């Protein structure tokens, strides 16, 4: 039934999104409820938000089998639960008095200021814990502003894809180090949720 509703959605059949929404609802609510137990977050809200983004995604995807539609939806809901839990936790651990003296009254949200301040220290620690090769790649690309192509040539790499891959591995290590420093909540505040809003900006440009 899920598959039928999904196929209808792709074919643009009226009300198919509504059917798919109702078919996925109980399963997703079962996923979200234990995740958010003992919190004041309503799983209904989380499931609703997840389904809205999922339906938008499903409308443009054409290669999903029945089981994958359900699996996709489950992962998306679990991730959204994690997202709201992380934000909640981040807000709980924030202590504004730490930066009271450094806050400039007319500037951004104090929470963002605090996060920015702490992130600088954590980023420094995380970068220093990287292997030298990673530090070189990150420094050349981001600090010196060299392009991937230029750097790949300097490093005598066969293709730029190799450098893209290595950069990604270095960023993954950096993220791990960064989170070890205690920054797990901060990443979410800096760039919360998925990147849907990034593309909105891109469209405007």
């Amino acid at each position, binding site marked *: 039934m899920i598959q039928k509703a999904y196929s209808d959605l792709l074919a643009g059949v009226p009300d198919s999104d509504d059917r798919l929404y109702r078919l996925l609802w109980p399963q997703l609510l079962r996923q979200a409820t234990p995740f958010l137990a003992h919190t004041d977050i309503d799983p209904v809200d989380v499931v609703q938000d997840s389904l809205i*983004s*999922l339906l*938008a*995604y499903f409308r*443009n*995807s054409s290669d999903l089998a029945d089981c994958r539609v359900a699996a*996709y939806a489950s*992962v*998306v809901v*679990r*991730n*959204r639960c*994690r*997202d709201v*839990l*992380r934000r909640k*936790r981040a807000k709980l651990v924030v*202590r504004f*008095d*730490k930066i009271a003296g450094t806050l400039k009254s007319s500037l951004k949200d104090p929470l963002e200021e605090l996060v920015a301040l702490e*992130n*600088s*220290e954590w*980023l*420094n620690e995380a*970068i*220093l814990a990287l292997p030298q090769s990673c*530090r070189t790649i*990150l*420094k050349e*690309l*981001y*600090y010196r*502003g060299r392009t*991937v192509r230029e750097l790949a040539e300097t490093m005598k790499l066969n293709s*730029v*894809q190799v450098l*893209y*891959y290595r*950069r*990604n591995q270095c*960023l*993954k290590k*950096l*993220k791990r180090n*960064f989170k070890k420093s205690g920054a*797990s909540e901060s*990443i*979410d505040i*800096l*760039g919360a*949720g*998925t*990147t*849907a809003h*990034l*593309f909105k900006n891109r469209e405007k440009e």
Partner: protein
Amino acid sequence: MSLLEFECVDPKIGEQMHLFDDESLDPDLRDQLERHLAVCHACSEGVHFESFVAGRLASPRGAGFFRKPTTSLPGYLAMTAVLAAILLLFLLPPGYGTGWLTDDREGLRGGDEREFMIIRPLEGEVLYRWRGDLRWTPVVNTSFYNIHVEWRSETSSEGATWRDQVRTCQVSLPDSLMREGAFLAIVKPYPEGLVPAGERAVGFRRGSLLPFLAYRIKHPPLASLALLALSLGVGTAMFYRRRI
């Protein structure tokens, strides 16, 4: 993996995410990646993290992220205080040890400081590479002081005695006595009767480095203790400032 760690919705696509900003990327794949990012928290976290890192490193202060952080002024103060405390622990005369609390100073100095007492060594002190200097406080109207020193080896039955008469308030023991072992030094002002009880005595040891270090740690000078407490205070304050 932590419970709050995001899962990639479709790892087959997620694995290609590193190509996201490759200008030569196939438009269909780019489209697929963009749609994946819109629904996948795990991958979009990676993209956000990259733009966060890029933003930080591209700033004029970006180079600072690749350098070890310099120690702050309180950090330097705390470190200097610890080093000074350790240095003073060995350079200054030993403190009273538990005598700070029990007011056992008189016993350690072989007498009352208002009348007449031996300044160094202290009662029970362990000395390392001691050059044999014995000092005491002056006694008014004294013609000279009678010095009597007994030495006894702690590893054999050897022993020796040495006597001298001096007009000053200090004396250096002969080289023949500069050996490891237990000492008893008695200083007696002449004429007798100038101070109550007449003479002062201290027992001490000339030993190797380890017993000397152990003694100094048990009997730290007050200045050394104060500096340690200061550095501990600054260190604790810095630690909590960093953690809150």
